[in-house]
């Protein structure tokens, strides 16, 4: 038997698993489906880790105790979370950064434009790709073998016990134990299409989705595991979804395609109608709901409209907005129905109550008698030039996954596999049934990646001990 531990995947969770298993003395092979230039999965688009801490720590301000973290998670997931696993991730986040530093990850105070996250999130200097680079360097220095361009097609399982992985090339790679950290299925367009189905307008909404994340997460192993009887967690339509610029690339648009102007203006659909409260809560707490909201609109497109008062108050989007001096001209330029859009803006403007605008607090600028309302930061759109952005749903990662236990072992009919673990997005649905809060994906990936690596190394040792016992005369 060549390898103790086989790690399938090449992002944060996979690397944490591979390094931890190697540190525990196992021989480790990591299979990354992507070529070297695209390695790292969605991790290269990340930048922060949500961390529990009871007192200020280097780059983290204040305190973020376990209970608050848990309540935040419970709130964003509306209770669709496994408390035991969630608390494992939360507690793990409190102590993991020393290990990360040891493997070359540098932290920095929260990035500009994200100061509100300085208490809850530690930011990686250079972002997730720098973190991935550091982990690959450290893994290879420790002796983890890495193969790029090595997509795994299926796993050879026997009663929930891992035997080997079969590559697309037909190669069979046996190992004592394995960690699957191969991500969700967001880049399998057909799967997304079927999952979202056809809406009452006869549209296939997922056909209009953009993928913010990696083009390599096609859910091949997720599908294989579920077909082989691994317990399923989560809903196929649940995902980290943000409304992003409609001009973004089909894959790997990453952070810079987002438009953070929504709470400063209004959002209309292609009929020129508003459809949700743009000022419900602080934008960082709301940015992740708009992907789904836009997905439910006709044409899966939303149009964010702002006036000159908003300019310079939000993170500059990578694509320049469409600009006009009159709402009518802006609507026409964006392809919106002019009359309907104008009347929506007029109604909104008339409903804005006077108040003291302050984007830093939940201010008293609200609409009155308008449905849906705008609860905060509602200021009439009256100052030209007006700017508009067409937005479409941008999927970062899907939440459908395999169920795991507290040691990250994959469950088959409620029984944990003796030697197959899962980490990262392929099991994030255990903790994240829906919704999102910044940095929690990396928390789950890091903590469960390390748990999975430790467990896989242990399983490999047990297997080796058993087999040597078996062969002892």
């Amino acid at each position: 038997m060549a390898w103790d531990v086989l790690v399938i995947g090449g992002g944060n969770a996979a690397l944490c698993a591979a390094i931890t298993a190697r540190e525990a003395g196992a021989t480790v092979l990591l299979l990354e489906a992507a070529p070297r230039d695209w390695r790292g999965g969605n991790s290269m688009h990340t930048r922060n880790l949500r961390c529990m801490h009871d007192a200020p720590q280097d780059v983290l301000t204040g305190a973020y105790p376990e209970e608050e973290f848990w309540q935040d998670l419970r709130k964003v997931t509306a209770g669709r979370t496994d408390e035991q696993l969630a608390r494992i991730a939360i507690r793990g986040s409190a102590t993991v950064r020393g290990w990360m530093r040891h493997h070359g990850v540098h932290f920095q105070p929260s990035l500009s434009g994200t100061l509100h996250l300085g208490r809850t999130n530690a930011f990686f200097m250079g972002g997730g790709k720098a973190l991935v680079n550091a982990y690959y360097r450290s893994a290879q220095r420790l002796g983890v073998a890495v193969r790029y361009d090595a997509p795994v097609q299926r796993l050879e399982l026997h009663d929930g016990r891992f035997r080997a992985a079969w590559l697309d090339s037909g190669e069979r790679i046996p190992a004592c134990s394995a960690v699957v950290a191969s991500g969700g299925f967001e880049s399998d367009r057909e799967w997304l299409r079927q999952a979202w189905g056809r809406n009452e307008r006869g549209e296939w909404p997922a056909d209009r989705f953009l993928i913010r994340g990696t083009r390599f997460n096609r859910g091949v192993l997720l599908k294989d595991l579920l077909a082989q009887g691994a317990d399923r967690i989560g809903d196929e339509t649940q995902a980290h979804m943000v409304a992003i610029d409609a001009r973004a690339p089909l894959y790997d648009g990453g952070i810079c395609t987002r438009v953070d102007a929504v709470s400063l203006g209004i959002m209309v659909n292609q009929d020129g109608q508003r459809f949700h409260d743009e000022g419900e809560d602080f934008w960082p707490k709301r940015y992740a709901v708009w992907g789904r909201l836009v997905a439910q609109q006709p044409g899966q497109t939303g149009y964010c409209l702002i006036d000159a008062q908003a300019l310079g108050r939000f993170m500059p989007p990578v694509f320049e907005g469409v600009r006009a001096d009159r709402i009518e001209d802006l609507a026409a330029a964006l392809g919106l129905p002019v009359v309907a859009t104008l009347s929506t803006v007029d109604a909104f403007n008339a409903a804005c109550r006077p108040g003291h605008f302050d984007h830093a607090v939940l201010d008293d600028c609200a609409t009155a008698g308008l449905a849906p309302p705008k609860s905060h930061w509602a200021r009439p759109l009256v100052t030209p030039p007006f700017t508009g952005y067409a937005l479409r749903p941008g999927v970062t990662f899907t939440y459908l996954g395999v169920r795991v236990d507290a040691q990250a072992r994959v469950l088959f009919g409620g029984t944990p596999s003796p030697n197959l673990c899962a980490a990262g997005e392929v099991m994030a649905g255990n903790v994240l049934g829906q919704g999102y809060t910044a940095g929690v994906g990396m928390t789950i990936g890091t903590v469960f990646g390390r748990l999975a690596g430790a467990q896989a190394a242990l399983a490999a040792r047990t297997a080796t001990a058993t087999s040597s016992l078996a062969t002892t005369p």
Partner: protein
Amino acid sequence: MTAPAAQHDGRHDAVPGVIARLGALAAEAEVDRQLRICNACRYCEGYCAVFPALMQRLTYTPADVHYLANLCHNCGACLHACQYASPHEFAVNLPQAMAVVRQRTYTAYAWPAPLGRLVRRHGMVVSLVLVVSMLLVLALAAAGGGPLWRVTGAGAFYEVLPHGMLVGLFAPAFGFAVLALGLGVRRFWRDQGEATAPARAWKRATRRALTLRHLGGGHGEGCPNDDDAYTPWRRVAHHLTFYGFALCFASTVAGTVMHYVVALPAPYGLVSVPKLLGLPGGAMLLVGSLAQLALYQRRDPRLKDPQQAGMDRALMALLAGIAATGLALPALHGHPALPLTLCAHLALVLTLFVTMPYGKLAHGVYRMAALLKRAAERNRPGPAVDGGG
């Protein structure tokens, strides 16, 4: 899908002096395109001063681009960290795009302007000037009467070339280099629309220049060279070169002072101020410039502008040559090779002075100007923005 295009706005209409004469601004437009992506992403803001400076703006005029390009130390950390680097269709490679613009600034702001075009053929210019300098020095030495292969006496150097002749040759060459660089950087500063920088900005910028803080990667571990690993060696090699050169320069100044003020002409013993400064200085300069050359050869090609290979290598080769011949001189006392070695040393130094304003060495003054501008502008208000998680 379309990659974000370079965009222009009203600020581009009022272009300052030198930029107005630059003609096509394709290199600046490319940097502008990339900076807008950077400004929407900002993951690299901890690496160096370029990112906070770019975040202070929403659009980038050609003058802004010239400033930011010279603020960039080409450390390369941002390329390795970039989720939008090739093969991504956004094809962001800020270090290389900045390098291309930097060379344009050396060309555009050069004084006198027509000589700016020498920057692009710097490697060849250096070779030509070196040959001419060598011929000139040899001719002057030969005109002195003595054969060029001979054992010289106690006054060694001045037997080969009289002191007055050396001063007559090098003082104007050095003076010209200082004048040309000074006038060039003044034009640059004017195009930036900057007033005189306050003293504390000078202090901050000088500290950053002397410590090469921005080759530290933001965390102090250094910068990438061959691959994505951080290495302190580029910073160390540059420090050796710079401080070695400074010691050599100080040695020359000390010698001048001793000659004129104390009336103690060369040669000096091993335990003399010029030697105590010059010997370690020469050794540092030799090791530093050779190390820089070696690191340059091994550097990830994506970080380099291939158009500038000649310019980049010429400077390091010149400095290594100056250091090697300079160190050889005391060792050759009483050896017939001394006069020729001295001629070579002098020709190399002369070449360095003459070509200095039109090549890689110009980076020193433009980078210092950019650091100064950064120090001066850092507390000016920028757009107050807020983003998602």
